[in-house]
Structure formats: structure tokens, C-alpha cells
């Protein structure tokens, strides 16, 4: 990203958005979980309360059911017992008549029983007679419907058609039955009959003629037989599963007698339709169902409402969160822009200060208090670089001016010479002279160009070293011979020390150039009648060449610039020096190329010493790998 400010804002907002979104999601998730937990719990509570209500209703139903059935049973039993006692009374009455007749007349049993057909012709007595009688009597009774009326304690009219009775003997002979039973018979299976004991009763549910009936079957004696069978009273109950009827007119009979079958018994059955009870119960059940349905509906509604409320609450929270996030983001956008602008202000100051830097003014116009601590190193480094740049610029400017000067002056001389010569006709000798002067100036220009080119090559790194085995003393001798005429003009004396140095593996032309320049300087800046020393020696893998003069010396402030181009310790110029301030720059460039160093010692007014050190192997043997 190009703009620092923009990228900071974007990153900051990205971070913020991530935080807000994750926080919101987390919050939302938590809330949703909590709401759903509450929702579940209330749902469970609701379900449980519904269930409880249902249980309660169910319980009530069961209680009702039991109560109704118990009442029915009790009523049935009562009626059965009443019927049984009535039968006994009737039977007693009949017996009394019989006894009376038996006693009063002389009738046989047959007659006594009013000449009933089918009676055995033989006289019968005892139990047998009773049985027969009983049968006959009961049959007789059965024909007499009126017996039933008071007996059952309810007027015939109102006697519900749903109530039935039936009395049958042990021989399965139906002695008596409700007239509206019609052709239906209340069932009495053999097993029950045999199993039942006297006064025992049993309830059962039966279906007769498409009606559901509650039936009680009671085994009861038909007579007390007190006269026939002496009574042997025993207090308390007779059997375990029967209880004494509350208003029993029956006199308890000795068990043994009964067991012996001596007492004639009948099965009194009384049934009643359970339709009404079942209807009531069905209604109740229906009510319960209704209530349950309602409860369930209500529960469902409540649940739905709860859910709606929960969703609404969540939605509202979501909205709030989104609004909050938007508000926070908006605030942060504005805030971050402001903060970042403030934060980046120093950078802007620096940028403005840097933009004011020009080639004319390399000063960074920036107050120290404007620079924050973090940027201080950058600014400091920038100042250093700018200072270096300013120096380089100044040097460059100086160099251009110098080159310009060095080139322009000979050119001006050339032009002036030619133009003067052309102003009028000259003699041949004069022309010769002019041409000679021009050639001299041209030579000077050529030398200058070559040096400038040489420096350019050194700068570009295209200068190549051609190392070979060089006899250094001989080369030095040649150089000395070349400058000897100059030295002679100034009346200088040479001293040359070889110190046993012989051959070295290096580039001879560059070494020659170095020596020429140094010797030339030593002569140029020497005082008349002075001396120039050239010394060669070896020092730990290096060849040392020293050139000493007795010249004007170099002031200390000039020494750091000594190897800069066009620099001259003497600020004024001597145009007859063709080196034009490039000599030492070339020396330095060549030494860099050869891997050597140069050092200067100088005392103003006494002389200077230039010391060159060229790296060579310890031996004088030629090396093949010493190329650059």
C-alpha cells in the first residue's frame, strides 16, 4: 500500500472489525444459548405442570370410577341379600302352611303340595321332601310376581329396566327372574357354583343381551330350617369371604349342616347395567381429555410465546449489537484518521523538510523537537547523507568548474592565437610560430583529456591491470631519468636507494605512472637547490616506495583532500603544470587498482614524504595468480 496513513487506518479498522465481529458473535452465541436454556427449562416446567394436572385429573377419575363401582357393588349386594331374605321369608311361610296342612289333614306330601304334577308317587320325607317342596314352592312363587314388588324396595314402575335379578337352584333350575330379562339368562357357570360357599358372593362383569352388566352372585340358604335342624349357633362369621349382611333375616346355619347339603340353597343373582356409570365415567374422561387438550394447547401456546419472546429478544440484541458495532466503527474511522494524522505529523514535517532540500541547499530545515525519538536515527542519518551529498555535490561542482577551467583556458588561448594570426597577413615564419604555439596548446589539451579519461576509466572500473615481472629499480631509474631535466632546471639533487629490491610482480605501466606523478610533484613543489629522495625497500610481504622532497610541504588542513581531483594544496594555479591537479588522484586510483596504499607525512616549509606500499609475496619469484 502506498499511503502509510491509509494502510494504518485499514489495518486498525480491520483489527477493530475483527474484534467487534468476534465479540458480537460470542455475545450472540452466549445469549442464544442462555435463552434456549431458559426456553428449555420453562418448556420442561410447563410440561411438568401439565403432566401434574393430568395426573390429578386421572386420579380423580380413578377415585370416581372406584367409588361408583363400589357403590354399585354395595347396592347390588344389598339387593341380592334383600331378595334372598325375602325368599327365605316366603319359603318359611310356605313351609308353615305345609306343616299345618301336614299336621291338620292327612294329605300326603303330594297333596300337600297341591297336587303338583310330576311328583313322585312314593312318599318322600326329610330333606328330599323339602327339596321337592322347595322346588315346587319356588316355582309357584315365581309365578307370583307381586312378591318382588316390596321386596326390591322400589316400585315396579320405577324399577329400572336396567336392573335384573335371577334366582336359580343348585340344579341350575331358574326359580325366579326379572320379567324384562326376556330370553336372556344371567350367566352362572358351573365352576363358580361348585366353588361357592354359603353366603359367599362374587362380583363379575357380564354382557347380556348386548348390555354391560355388573353382576353379583350370592349363594344363600332358602330356609333357616330351625324346626327341622336344630340350630347350633356360633357367634361371629361363618366363612372367611362372606360377611354378615346388615339386615339379614336369615338365621345362621351350622356350617356342617350346610356342608352336608342339608340346607337347600339358591343362587341369587342381581345385575345392573353399568351403562350410566360408564357414561358418567366417559363424560368424566371426555372432560379430562378436554382439560388435557386445553392444557396442552395452552402449553404449546405458552411455549410458542416464549419462543417468540426469546427470538424477539435475540433479534433486538442483534440489532443493538449491529448498531453498536456501526457506531463504534464510525467513531473509530474518525478517531483513527485523527489519531493517525496526529501520529504521522512528524513524518509529514520531515517529508516537508526533505522536500525543501535542493541542490542549492542541503540543510534539513527541521527543529530537533519536531523529530520523534523513533525517527531521530533516520533523521540523523539523513542529515549525514545530506552532508555527504552536499560535499559530493560541492566536489562535483568544483570538479566541473575545474574541468571547465582546465579545458576552457587552453581553448581560449588556441582561439586567440589563431584569431590574432588571422587578423592580417603574416610572414611564413610568423605562421610557423603560430602553428607551433597551437600545437603546444593542443598537446596540453590532449594530456588533460587523457588524464580525465583515465580517471573516468578508473571510476567505471574498466581499467585493467596487466601484471608482469617488473624490475622495480630499473623502472625507477627510468622515471628518474625522465624528470632529470626538470630537476636540473631547479637545481635539485636526486638520491636513489634500492636496498636490494629487485623484481616484483605488478603492472609496470601503472607503477611508472605513479612514480612519475610523485617525482613530478616532488620537483614541482621543491625549493631551488633542494633534494629528492627515492627509496625502495621490503617490508613483510610489501614493497615500500618512498619519495621525499625538501619542498614547501603540505598544510595539515589540505592533507585529507590531497587525493581529490583538481585539488591543489596551493589554491592558486600554475598553468604550466600539465597535471592540472589530477596527478595524485590518478596515483590513488592506480594504487586502489593494484591493492596498494599511500601515506603522506609532511612538515610545512621542510618537505613531504609520500610512502607507497604494494602487496607482494615474500619472495621475488613471479606469481601467476596475482592478476586483478
Amino acid at each position, binding site marked *: 500500500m502506498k499511503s502509510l496513513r491509509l494502510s494504518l487506518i485499514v489495518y486498525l479498522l480491520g483489527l477493530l472489525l475483527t474484534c467487534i465481529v468476534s465479540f458480537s458473535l460470542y455475545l450472540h452465541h452466549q445469549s442464544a444459548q442462555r435463552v434456549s436454556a431458559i426456553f428449555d427449562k420453562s418448556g420442561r416446567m410447563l410440561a411438568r405442570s401439565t403432566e401434574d394436572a393430568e395426573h390429578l385429573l386421572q386420579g380423580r377419575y380413578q377415585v370416581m370410577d372406584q367409588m361408583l363401582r363400589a357403590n354399585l357393588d354395595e347396592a347390588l349386594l344389598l339387593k341380592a341379600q334383600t331378595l334372598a331374605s325375602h325368599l327365605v321369608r316366603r319359603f318359611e311361610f310356605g313351609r308353615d302352611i305345609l306343616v299345618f296342612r301336614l299336621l291338620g289333614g292327612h294329605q300326603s306330601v303330594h297333596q300337600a303340595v297341591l297336587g303338583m304334577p310330576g311328583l313322585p308317587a312314593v312318599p318322600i320325607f326329610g330333606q328330599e321332601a323339602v327339596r321337592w317342596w322347595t322346588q315346587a314352592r319356588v316355582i309357584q312363587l315365581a309365578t307370583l310376581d307381586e312378591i318382588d314388588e316390596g321386596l326390591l324396595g322400589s316400585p315396579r314402575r320405577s324399577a329400572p329396566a336396567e336392573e335384573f335379578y335371577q334366582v336359580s337352584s343348585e340344579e341350575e333350575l331358574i326359580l325366579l327372574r326379572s320379567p324384562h330379562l326376556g330370553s336372556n339368562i344371567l350367566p352362572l357357570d358351573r365352576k363358580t357354583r361348585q366353588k361357592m360357599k354359603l353366603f359367599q358372593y362374587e362380583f363379575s362383569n357380564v354382557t347380556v343381551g348386548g348390555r354391560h352388566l355388573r353382576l353379583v352372585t350370592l349363594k344363600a340358604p332358602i330356609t333357616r330350617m330351625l324346626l327341622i335342624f336344630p340350630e347350633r349357633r356360633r357367634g361371629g362369621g361363618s366363612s372367611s369371604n362372606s360377611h354378615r349382611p346388615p339386615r339379614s333375616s336369615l338365621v345362621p346355619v351350622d356350617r356342617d349342616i350346610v356342608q352336608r347339603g342339608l340346607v337347600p340353597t339358591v343362587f341369587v343373582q342381581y345385575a345392573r347395567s353399568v351403562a350410566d356409570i360408564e357414561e358418567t365415567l366417559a363424560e368424566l374422561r371426555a372432560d379430562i381429555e378436554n382439560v388435557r387438550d386445553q392444557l396442552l394447547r395452552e402449553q404449546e401456546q405458552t411455549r410458542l410465546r416464549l419462543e417468540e419472546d426469546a427470538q424477539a429478544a435475540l433479534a433486538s440484541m442483534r440489532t443493538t449489537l449491529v448498531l453498536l458495532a456501526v457506531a463504534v466503527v464510525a467513531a473509530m474511522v474518525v478517531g483513527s484518521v485523527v489519531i493517525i494524522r496526529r501520529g504521522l505529523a512528524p513524518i509529514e514535517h520531515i517529508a516537508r523538510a526533505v522536500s525543501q532540500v535542493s541542490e542549492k541547499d542541503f540543510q534539513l530545515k527541521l527543529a530537533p523537537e519536531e523529530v520523534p525519538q523513533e525517527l531521530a536515527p533516520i533523521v540523523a542519518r539523513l542529515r549525514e547523507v545530506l552532508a555527504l551529498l552536499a560535499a559530493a555535490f560541492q566536489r562535483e561542482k568544483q570538479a566541473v*568548474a575545474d574541468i*571547465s*577551467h*582546465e*579545458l*576552457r*583556458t*587552453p*581553448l*581560449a*588561448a*588556441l*582561439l*586567440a*592565437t589563431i*584569431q*590574432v594570426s588571422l*587578423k*592580417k597577413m603574416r610572414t611564413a615564419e610568423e605562421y610557423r610560430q603560430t602553428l607551433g*604555439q597551437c600545437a*603546444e*596548446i593542443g598537446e596540453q589539451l590532449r594530456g588533460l583529456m587523457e588524464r580525465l579519461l583515465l580517471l573516468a576509466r578508473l571510476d567505471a572500473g574498466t581499467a585493467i591491470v596487466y601484471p608482469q615481472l617488473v624490475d622495480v629499480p630499473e623502472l625507477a631509474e627510468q622515471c628518474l631519468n625522465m624528470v632529470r631535466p626538470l630537476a636540473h632546471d631547479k637545481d635539485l639533487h636526486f638520491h636513489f636507494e634500492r636496498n636490494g629490491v629487485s623484481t616484483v610482480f605488478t603492472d609496470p605501466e601503472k607503477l611508472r605512472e605513479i612514480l612519475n606523478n610523485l617525482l613530478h610533484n616532488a620537483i614541482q613543489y621543491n625549493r631551488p637547490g633542494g633534494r629528492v629522495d627515492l627509496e625502495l625497500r621490503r617490508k613483510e610481504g610489501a614493497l615500500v616506495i618512498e619519495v621525499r622532497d625538501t619542498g614547501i610541504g603540505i598544510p595539515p588542513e589540505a592533507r585529507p583532500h590531497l587525493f581529490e581531483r583538481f585539488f591543489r594544496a*596551493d*589554491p*592558486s*594555479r*600554475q*598553468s*604550466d603544470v600539465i597535471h592540472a591537479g589530477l596527478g595524485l588522484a590518478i596515483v590513488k586510483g592506480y594504487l586502489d587498482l593494484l591493492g596498494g596504499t599511500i601515506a603522506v607525512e609532511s612538515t610545512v616549509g621542510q618537505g613531504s614524504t609520500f610512502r607507497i606500499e604494494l602487496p607482494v609475496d615474500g619472495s621475488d619469484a613471479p606469481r601467476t595468480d596475482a592478476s586483478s
Partner: protein
Amino acid sequence: MRVLLVEDHKPLVRALKQGLEEEGFAVDVAADGEEGDFKARSADYDVIVLDLMLPKIDGLTLLRSWRRDGIKSFVLVLTARGGTDDKVLGLDAGADDYLTKPFELEELLARIRALIRRRHEVKSPIIRIYDLEINTASRVVKRGGKAIHLTPKEYALLEFLAYHCGKVVTRSMIWNHLYDENDENTSNVVDVYIRYLRNKIDKGFDPPLILTRWGEGYMLQAPE
């Protein structure tokens, strides 16, 4: 007119000296700042041609010290530095004109002539005195419409007299302005040249324009 040439480049000095002398200037030469300073202070040069890059004392320093010390010679700065900054620096230091190397010889001569006119508060390159007409640019002299051929020395003398028209010019003034340091001062050399000039200017014309003031010098003056 006498010119001081302060320049260290010997071939250039040689050419300029010759070029100027052939135009009738008396040329003195200084090869470094010290010598230039000495000569500028010891003679009244009409124009000093000053190089800025000089050995020993540089041109700007010289110029400033001259202006400070009231040396009134016109200075034409001659240098290899062509930048505006350098021109401003040179002119502000007291230079009257500026010429960048390399230059045309004719331009240098024209500028020197212009400086000389300024020195004598003359605007036109043509000086007219009665029926005498001197074109300082082309160095053509006419009298009564008739062209008169003069040697450079004669012309220089006439020009010098014309610039001082109506004023008496002493022999030493003439000497100082028309002869360089190497000319040998013989007592009557000025008189000789005045005679030559009269032969060419006044002979055959009337009235004579070159007058002699006994005991003082000479004067070029139109008749009243």
C-alpha cells in the same frame, strides 16, 4: 590606451598581447596575482583584463582590494567559470565587464574599446571634432570627408587626444597611456609622434586641430 593583462596561461597571454598590441594598445602582462596587484597599483591603466584563477592571489581578491583602495581602472574579468553565480560574484566585486573563456578576440577588443569610451564618458563610437571624424570601432579617421591612414601608434595618440578633447594632455600622460612597460622612454618620442600625426591630420587642412601648449603639452581642439 594602456592595458594590463593579468593571466597565468602563457600561450593565451602571448596571443592576447600580440592581438592587443596590433590594435595599438600598450599591453603590460602579469603572470600571477602578486605581480598583477603590483602593476595595477603602480600605473594608471585604462583597462585591466583580469583572469580570476591566478596563482598566489586569486582575481576576485585582487579586484576587491583594488576597489577598496580606490583604483579606478576599468576591469574586464576573464575567466573559465561561466556560471551566473560567478558572473554575479565578479561584477559585484567591482568588475566592469565579464567575458567567459573561450572568447572571440574581436569581442574582447570591442569590450575593451567600450570600456575606454565609458572611461572618457563618450557614448558614440564616432568622435567628431570640427571636420575631423574618428570611428573608434573601425579605427577609420577622416578629415573633411577624406580618409586618413594612420599607424596603430598614431591612431592611438589621436584617439587619446580626441578623448581628452579641449583639455591639455601632458607628455607624461601620453607616455603613460600609449607605451607599455617595456618601451624605452626617450625624451622626444611623444613629440615625434605628434609631428607625424600633425603631418597627417593638419597638413593641408585648415585650421590646425592639434595645438601645442608650451610647457604643458598638447591639446586637440576645434576652432572657436
